[in-house]
């Protein structure tokens, strides 16, 4: 890699480090965004899906005559019709198969059974309600423990050779070394905890407008997609359409959070319907459709054990996971990791041995296991280790902050290889935690807590120090459905010096149209306002794997730097020609090429761009554009120290956050304002998970949490005030030293909130309350402790 160029720019250029206002906001705020539901095509029909009201039943028959008879209904599609086109089942991102429309059985409440295509969405909804399905009820399996018991009904009885509900077993680390460490340990502590099922719940639900031209065979598919290129290839593979005839357009997206990574049955049915009918077909989910059937997150039952020596040093970790996969195994994750990156569970701590075992089980619940604002199960891992170290500290009578400081990986140990094989690139955990402790006034708070306890008041201080592993690739290790994880950027600088940057990734609100332009602004000195960022249209952008797992800046951000540097190299040649100097003597800083030693001899990037089309030196190709595919050498490892202070009402169990101090280190911040926005959002989601939000099921498998009255999303009213801090240890391998940050706060904060409530009750012997930490659970814990 070439040496990092000088990337500083004045505010009018607006490169890295400037809190440039988001360039996409004007159109979004003024209602000029272009979302999926804004797509209206001539002759477009509307689709509604009839879903199973029950969790597990055999289908005896489907009567769609009443639906077909409704005025305005064009077609009713059932599994039988899909089967005739070999499309009743489709592959999942984890190599399983998933029913598109149920033919044999329904396996969860909300599963797609039939679809109505009509001239108007109201008619489609009315007709879908008229479809009659004759069900033979089967017992519902609602948890993985029940699912793996000997007498559980086999949910996936259509799979050849499947005689139970086990999806996979997977392990990582060194069992023998771990066992040995546990045998020699002075103390072993353990924690059983459950990370409940949650849902990304983007405010814009998922949808598609499929437009297959019956003459040309061209399929233009408007899709709420976080990964348009990957989806194009998967469409080609699943539907057998020639890839050059598939164009995926992912317009403005109203939030994704991992929910818009999978391909859903509705997409397949709408595309098939458009193909068969020769007209565009729109399908957009209702809120309940989205919450009950599309990719959920978490649902992880976890046990962790730590082996400690007599001084409180960690010797080894054991972690065991039982994952509730729902009816189809459709985690979005790299092929070789059956439990995502859960093996990052050793966290921020330095110890030699770990062993991680994971099992997945089918249940009669919606499939998913998407990386909900998370780099493939890292949230669960981070939650377990941060809850576990807190437990260990209480058990050996050490302050939880001291326990962490004793066991942290030290700054001089980076790059640090963990016992499960990650190579952490950089960090300074001690400085981060100490800075957060100073800010919150940790020592004073401990004194205040003791005084409060003496008066019968319950004050709690919770810490979480997370380390994330984000930004997949490198492509040798990371893929989705076999597609390798690199990413791309194409940069074209027009004769007038204005530029267009095309990306393989796709924003869903993260601010790519601003931050990626800022990278170019820093690299080439073209003002950020002169750069248009294009993404989401597969006919007009280079191939990439999309935006999730905090990967856009680590991968496409790297590509943007690299392509800019290609143009800088070419620009130096052109400048040398214009200035009649040697190429080796040309420096570029903030958009000015100058001759080293005589800086008054200079040309601007705009003059160079113009020359690229009007006055090229002999032997150079015309044009000022390039493309770069960036395959990162490693993941990036952002981290943070979060400290939460709560007060618990001992009479009711209601708890309230008094302080939330969040220190994040994500390396170099491209746009500090946008980074803070991402952190605010993540801290809010962490607060939601820890305090109020979950998807649960009754014993018949009915989903509770199917609308926003039951699935609670906090607003500014109840969300605590956040106090943000930062340190900056740049990534040593990323072209601009940046690490991913989109997910840090969602990953790191739940444990901080929960640890705070537990801390308030810890002197009574309370060690665990599962999320959401509802007041009745706190009250129960208090009652059983006293």
């Amino acid at each position: 890699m070439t040496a990092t160029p000088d990337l500083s720019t004045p505010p009018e250029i607006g490169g890295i480090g400037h809190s440039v206002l988001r360039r996409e906001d004007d159109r979004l705020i003024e209602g000029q965004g272009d979302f999926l539901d804004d797509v209206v095509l001539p002759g477009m029909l509307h689709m509604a899906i009839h879903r199973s009201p029950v969790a597990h039943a055999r289908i005896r028959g489907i009567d769609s005559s009443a639906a077909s008879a409704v005025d305005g209904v064009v077609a009713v599609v059932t599994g039988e019709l899909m089967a005739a086109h070999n499309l009743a089942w489709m592959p999942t991102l984890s190599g399983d198969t998933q029913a598109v429309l149920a033919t044999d059985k329904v396996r969860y409440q909300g599963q797609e059974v039939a679809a109505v295509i009509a001239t108007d969405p109201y008619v489609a909804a009315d007709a879908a309600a008229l479809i009659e399905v004759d069900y033979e009820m089967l017992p519902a399996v609602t948890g993985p423990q029940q699912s793996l018991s000997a007498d559980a009904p086999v949910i996936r009885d259509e799979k050849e050779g499947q005689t139970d509900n086990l999806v996979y077993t997977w392990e990582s680390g060194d069992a023998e070394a771990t066992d040995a460490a546990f045998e020699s340990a002075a103390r072993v502590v353990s924690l059983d905890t459950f990370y409940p099922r949650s849902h990304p719940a983007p405010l814009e639900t998922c949808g598609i407008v499929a437009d297959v031209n019956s003459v040309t065979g061209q399929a233009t598919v408007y899709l709420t997609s976080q990964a348009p290129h990957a989806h194009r290839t998967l469409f080609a593979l699943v539907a057998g359409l020639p890839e050059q005839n598939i164009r995926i357009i992912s317009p403005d997206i109203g939030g994704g959070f991992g929910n818009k990574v999978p391909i859903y049955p509705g997409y397949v049915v709408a595309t098939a319907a458009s193909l068969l009918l020769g007209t565009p077909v729109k399908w957009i989910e209702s809120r309940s459709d989205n919450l009950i059937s599309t990719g959920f997150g978490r649902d992880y039952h976890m046990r962790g054990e730590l082996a400690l020596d007599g001084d409180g040093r960690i010797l080894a970790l054991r972690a065991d996971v039982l994952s509730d996969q729902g009816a189809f195994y459709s985690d979005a994750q790299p092929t070789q990791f059956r439990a995502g990156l859960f093996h990052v569970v050793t966290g921020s701590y330095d110890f030699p041995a770990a062993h991680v075992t994971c099992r997945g089980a089918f249940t009669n619940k919606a499939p998913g296991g998407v990386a909900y604002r998370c780099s493939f199960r890292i949230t669960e891992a981070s939650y377990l280790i941060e809850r576990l170290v807190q437990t260990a500290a209480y058990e050996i009578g050490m302050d939880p902050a001291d326990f962490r400081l004793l066991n942290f990986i030290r700054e001089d140990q980076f790059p640090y290889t963990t016992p499960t094989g990650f190579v952490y690139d950089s960090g300074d955990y001690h400085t981060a935690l100490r800075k957060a402790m100073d800010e919150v006034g940790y020592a004073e708070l401990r004194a205040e807590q003791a005084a409060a306890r003496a008066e019968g008041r319950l004050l709690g201080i919770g810490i979480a120090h997370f380390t994330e592993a984000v930004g997949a690739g490198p492509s040798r290790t990371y893929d989705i459905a076999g597609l390798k994880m690199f990413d791309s950027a194409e940069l074209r600088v027009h004769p007038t010096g204005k530029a267009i940057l095309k990306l393989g990734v796709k924003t869903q609100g993260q601010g790519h149209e601003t931050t990626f332009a800022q990278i170019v602004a820093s690299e080439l000195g073209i003002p950020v306002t002169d750069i248009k960022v294009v993404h989401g249209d597969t006919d007009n952008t280079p191939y990439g794997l999309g935006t999730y797992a905090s990967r856009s800046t680590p991968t496409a951000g790297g590509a943007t730097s690299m392509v800019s540097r290609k143009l800088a190299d070419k620009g130096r040649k052109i400048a040398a020609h214009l200035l009649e100097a040697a190429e080796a003597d040309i420096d570029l800083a903030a958009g000015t090429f100058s001759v080293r030693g005589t800086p008054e001899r200079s040309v601007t990037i705009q003059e160079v761009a113009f020359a690229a089309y009007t006055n090229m030196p002999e032997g150079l190709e015309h044009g000022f554009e390039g493309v770069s595919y960036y395959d990162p050498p490693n993941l990036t490892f952002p981290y943070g120290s979060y400290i939460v202070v709560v007060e618990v009402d001992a009479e009711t169990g209601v708890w309230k956050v008094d302080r939330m101090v969040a220190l994040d280190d994500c390396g170099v911040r491209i746009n500090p304002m946008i980074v803070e926005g991402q952190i605010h959002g993540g801290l809010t989601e962490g607060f939601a998970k820890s305090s109020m939000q979950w998807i649960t099921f009754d014993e018949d498998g009915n989903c509770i949490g199917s609308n926003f009255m039951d699935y609670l999303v906090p607003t500014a009213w109840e969300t605590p005030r956040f106090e943000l801090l930062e340190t900056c240890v740049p990534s040593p391998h990323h072209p601009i030293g940046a690490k991913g940050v989109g997910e840090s706060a969602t990953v790191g904060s739940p444990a901080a909130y929960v640890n705070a409530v537990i801390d308030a009750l810890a002197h009574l012997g309370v060690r665990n309350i599962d999320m959401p930490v509802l007041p009745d659970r706190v009250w129960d814990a208090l009652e059983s402790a006293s």
Partner: protein
Amino acid sequence: MYPPSFDLTVARSVAEAVDALAEGGEDARILAGGQSLIPMLKLRFAAPSLLVDINEIAGLDLLERTNGHLRIGATARHADIVASDLPGGAVASAAPWISDPLVRNRGTVCGSVAHCDPEGDWNSVLLATGATVVATGPGGERSIDIGDFVVDFFTNSLAPGEMVTEVHVPVPAGASGGAYMKLERKVGDYATVGVATHLELGGDGTISAAGIAMTSVAPVNRKASDAEALLVGEAPGDELFAAAAEAAAAASEPRSDVRGSAEWKRNVVRVYTRRGLEAALAQAQAG
């Protein structure tokens, strides 16, 4: 989410509304703020054939104090109660607890009263304060005691063709106070537990009248009559309030659900009744 199809009539007067209701029969419904009805339509829990919109009827949004009553008209919004100086006691205390500003800007008190959702807050307040519902129908106007108006969950005692035109909340002449205590999971959520309390004091400082009613802990908003009876005629004090709180908890019938266990909810009724009585007393004593 798409509601089933229905007809809509926009009434310009109470008489027009009542006529339309009578004509529409069983399946006709008043549309007030729509904050309960529209979600029910979208979830397809209700499929009325006709909606009679009362929002354009002039004068129905009245909010005034006359003859020892606070009068709240059928289109007075929750937000109007929050913004006004006229209400006191439990009414003033409850208003900011109704959902969030968006819902309060549209939803009406009378709509909430008519809806008889056991998770709705207003009927507890009206039960605690001894309010009266004014109904108008083909046969004219009549007053119904709130205790007789609330029949069962989602069931009121309106006769066919009748609508609620006002509610009247008594405003005591002497020292009084009231409070509404609500435990909710987040702003905009229905009550997990709600307790309305109302106290009136005699010249000697003893309790001359008491009202306690509970939200979300029984199939209907429930008056804690035994608890009220314990209080009347007594001098206020910690032990008395603890006993009343215990009686209120005993009168509650909560169910375990995603919001929490029945046992815990009963405990919250106990705690909130005591805290509500303390707040009501402080207000009454402050004058």
